[in-house]
């Protein structure tokens, strides 16, 4: 027992931001542990789960579709069902949508071009565990790098999600054709979040922004609380 909460980083074939996520989580006080996609259980002391960015299974069929039915995802589903915090970044967001743990789906960028740059996102809702170090209306600088980041859902569900405060991050300006400029959403119970921008690439001023640390540090807090609650 290190006193640091264990955060499981699930690694799929084609994940490529798993190490950056683990490095950032470690720098923010967590004990990151890689979990291979074929594992059927998460480590017993898991306090939070991160699904990292990348191109799991080569984006075959639809981004995140194949990964959404990997054995490790059954364990992630159980963990989320028990109230455990789960954060999906980029491809991780796509996986959570395909697994129907989050509403909507990520579609090819409107401009059909890969977009790789810093973006400004606005915090729409600070009333979830993930956003508690931020304030509603705050602007964060976070990089994006994706070809399929246009979040979409039907109009009825979009209105419902907006009303319920499940839209947590929006781009300050058009980035990829995402409906309502949505950059991040949470599930109904607020313990599963997905976002296209990469907080793990923005945890030190040397990287251009440390704003991502606000989100990941909140996840580490939530992980510590979940471990305590489960004990």
């Amino acid at each position, binding site marked *: 027992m290190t006193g640091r909460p264990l955060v499981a980083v699930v690694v799929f074939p084609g994940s490529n931001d798993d190490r950056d996520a683990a490095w950032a989580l470690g720098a923010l006080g967590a004990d990151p542990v890689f979990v291979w996609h074929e594992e059927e259980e998460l480590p017993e002391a898991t306090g939070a789960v991160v699904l990292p960015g990348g191109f799991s299974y080569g984006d075959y*069929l*639809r981004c995140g*579709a194949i990964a959404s*039915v990997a054995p490790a995802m059954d364990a992630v589903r159980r963990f989320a069902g028990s109230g455990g915090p789960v954060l999906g970044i980029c491809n991780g967001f796509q996986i959570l949508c*395909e697994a129907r743990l989050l509403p*909507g*789906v990520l*579609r*090819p*960028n*409107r*401009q*059909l071009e890969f977009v790789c740059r810093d973006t400004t996102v606005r915090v729409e809702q600070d009333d979830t565990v993930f956003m508690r170090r931020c304030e509603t209306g705050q602007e964060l600088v976070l990089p994006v790098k994706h070809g399929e980041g246009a979040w*979409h*859902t*039907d109009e009825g569900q979009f209105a419902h999600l907006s009303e319920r405060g499940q839209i947590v991050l929006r781009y300050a300006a058009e980035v990829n*054709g995402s409906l309502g400029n949505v950059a991040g959403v949470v599930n109904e119970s607020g313990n599963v979040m997905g976002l296209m921008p990469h907080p793990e690439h923005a945890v030190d001023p040397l990287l251009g922004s440390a704003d991502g640390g606000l989100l990941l540090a909140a996840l580490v807090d939530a992980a510590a609380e979940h471990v305590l609650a489960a004990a």
Partner: protein
Amino acid sequence: MRATVLVRPKDGILDPQGEAVQGSLEKLGFAVGSIRVGRVIDIDLGAVGQAFAREQVERMCSELLANPLIESVEIRLVEA
């Protein structure tokens, strides 16, 4: 039994891929209306009955092959 699943972007869903193909065909001198790009999935189901085959393929579609938010599916069954 063999199944062919046609997965298409639903009506009303923006299809930037289709738009890009349309633009390229126009550059080649073809006069075309709108173009939509989907996917074809051929499945060999072995020796099974029609009703069972349809039930299986419908489940495959809802669990993995298509995303009902944005895609429609058409299933064609052919005796192998």
